[in-house]
């Protein structure tokens, strides 16, 4: 036990003046406030969906943030409906998103490498063209895409209407521009001497691309891959237009049917379905996080 008595003759240390609350609020307090507001803004909708997923027959107006009687009923309903094969949609969507993401990264990185490292006729024009095309949302071309796909269906049905493969191809086309720009911007920061050094060491263009440039660009590739994955997961308009058979739908299109019909009855399974769909994205993000932390090029050149 520490005594609080003062020793006679010891110098008296004046107590540290307490900072006033008002001053604290002005200095740092308001930052906390902003932070909490931002967190609430981001999390409340999520919490709300989580809550709805575990509540039996929730309604939009009176869902509590914390479910009163948590139940898995919504999940069982969701997974056991033969008319609306949720599991099938889930597999469709994840495969489509994963494959599209991988190919988006590969194609965009290839284009970016050419634009960043080679000097050829039409390089500047090509870059501007990519950016220009990117300015128009892909669904502006919806009618054209639909018409093209009907014709493709006649010749090669596997890539036409009502085909996930065809849908993936369209996503790939739309994703090229901005991703190629993003990755090119990153490649441009990798010193040319690294390529040249590899060249002198005996590497071919392919070996430089795969062995040196791509590993160094991991952060931006991870970002592009993740964004592409999320885009495919969320994309609704084109998927809705092209996909028809119930077993070929994506999650976005399929889940929309839930709330499109028998709205009140399906709100719970809808929330449950949305929640399950978010899980792979979270896992992917956690997995890619370590690559997204940049700074890999550090230490190559003078430091």
């Amino acid at each position: 036990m520490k005594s609080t008595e003062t020793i006679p003759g010891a110098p008296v240390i004046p107590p540290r003046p307490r900072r006033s609350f008002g001053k604290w609020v002005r200095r740092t307090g308001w930052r906390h406030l902003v932070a909490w507001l931002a967190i609430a803004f981001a999390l409340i909708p999520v919490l709300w969906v989580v809550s709805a997923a575990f509540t039996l027959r929730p309604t939009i107006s009176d869902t509590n943030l914390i479910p009163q009687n948590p139940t898995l009923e919504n999940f069982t309903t969701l997974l056991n409906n033969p008319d609306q094969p949720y599991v099938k949609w889930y597999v469709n969507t994840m495969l489509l998103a994963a494959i599209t993401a991988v190919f988006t990264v590969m194609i965009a990185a290839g284009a970016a490498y050419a634009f960043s490292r080679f000097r050829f006729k039409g390089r500047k024009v090509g870059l501007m063209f990519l950016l220009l095309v990117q300015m128009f949302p892909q669904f502006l071309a919806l009618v054209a895409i639909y018409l093209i796909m009907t014709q493709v269906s006649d010749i090669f049905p596997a890539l036409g209407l009502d085909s996930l493969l065809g849908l993936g191809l369209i996503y790939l086309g739309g994703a090229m521009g901005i991703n190629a720009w993003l990755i090119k911007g990153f490649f441009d920061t990798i010193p040319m001497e690294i390529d040249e050094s590899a060249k002198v060491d005996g590497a071919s263009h392919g070996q430089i691309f795969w062995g040196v440039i791509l590993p160094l660009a991991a952060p931006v590739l991870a970002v592009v891959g993740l964004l592409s994955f999320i885009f495919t997961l969320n994309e609704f308009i084109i998927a809705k237009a092209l996909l028809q058979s119930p077993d070929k739908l994506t999650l976005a299109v399929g889940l929309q049917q839930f709330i499109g019909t028998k709205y009140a009855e399906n709100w719970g399974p809808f929330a449950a379905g949305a929640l399950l769909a978010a899980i792979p994205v979270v896992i992917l993000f956690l997995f890619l996080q370590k690559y997204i932390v940049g700074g890999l090029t550090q230490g190559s050149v003078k430091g």
Partner: protein
Amino acid sequence: MAELVLTDVDKVYDNGFHAVKDLSIEVTDGEFLVLVGPSGCGKTTALRMIAGLEEITDGTISIGGKVVNEVSPRDRNIAMVFQNYALYPHMTVAENIGFGLALRRDPKAEIREKVDKAGRLLDLTSMLSRRPKQLSGGQRQRVAMGRAIVRDAELFLMDEPLSNLDAKLRVQMRAEIASLQQQLGITTVYVTHDQVEAMTMGHRVAVMRLGELQQIAPPQELYDNPDNVFVAGFIGTPPMTLFHADLTVGADGTRLRVGTQDIVLQGDVAAARPFLAAASGGEIIAGIRAEDIYVQEREGFAPLEISVLLSEALGPSVHVNFLLEGTPVDEGRLGSGLASAAENELNRLGQVSGIEGVAAFPPRMNFPVGSRMTAWIDTARLLFFDVESGRALR
């Protein structure tokens, strides 16, 4: 190992800039050639053409007797050390060093053995599993060297490999690179803008200026007998003092008139320089090295009145920047920091005309700034150049 021959090599960049003009150099097998010149003179361009990283506009380059103009860098069997090292950041030191071997698909055990050997040679053994960003500048430099030496290349190319290091490390690495080259005996072209590196490292030194080769010779030869005014002024620290003089070769001797003073060449000195007679009655450029200017008279020396601009006691000697009445030479000063220091001092004193020069005097002597004194020139060590062409008169 192989010899390298450049024949009339030209480089014109896409924007029309003529960076290298008619460059012809022969580097013999096992030689260490230093390519030196002020910044922007085309050294890097020349080296990159040898490496195949830059297209050759005209002329031929051959390595080991084989013309390589159309051969890609990876097939030239060369190794290059870049100014900023260009290490692969995502690979460990061992992977960096072994990258070229791995590309060749050498057996793993063999690669490890070679990497270990290079590591021992370069004192990197304990760093082999680190990444470049965990290394100091000097260690990165060594890794870059290691990457070059494991490959058993026929030719080493180095572009200012020491310019990112601090002064002390630079001196140390200078010696290490030179002795490494000696051990390995690999033909080497070493580019630098630092004439001290040029003087100390190479078997021969090629001096370039504005894309043109000025002179190629062993360092001492370059120092003692520069081919032209540029080389005379560029090579040597402190730089040579160069000045205009009116020459008269008459019955009463050979005189150089500098401003209002005369430098008289004694009989035997004049007799050893018969070429001066042809230039008699006209202007020439003369030059004298700092160590050939003395404070005391001796046989064959000529007196010269100078005023002290700046005095730097370096320990072994005192460098005195001085001003001499007369007409200065522009070109002699390129690339020397000392000249600009003297120039600043000049401006401060408000005397802008005259010849600036440097003398190296014995240590522990005092030369007050602004004072006038008589310096003695060893006339036998004077160099002479043509006023028009700048070429050495010999």
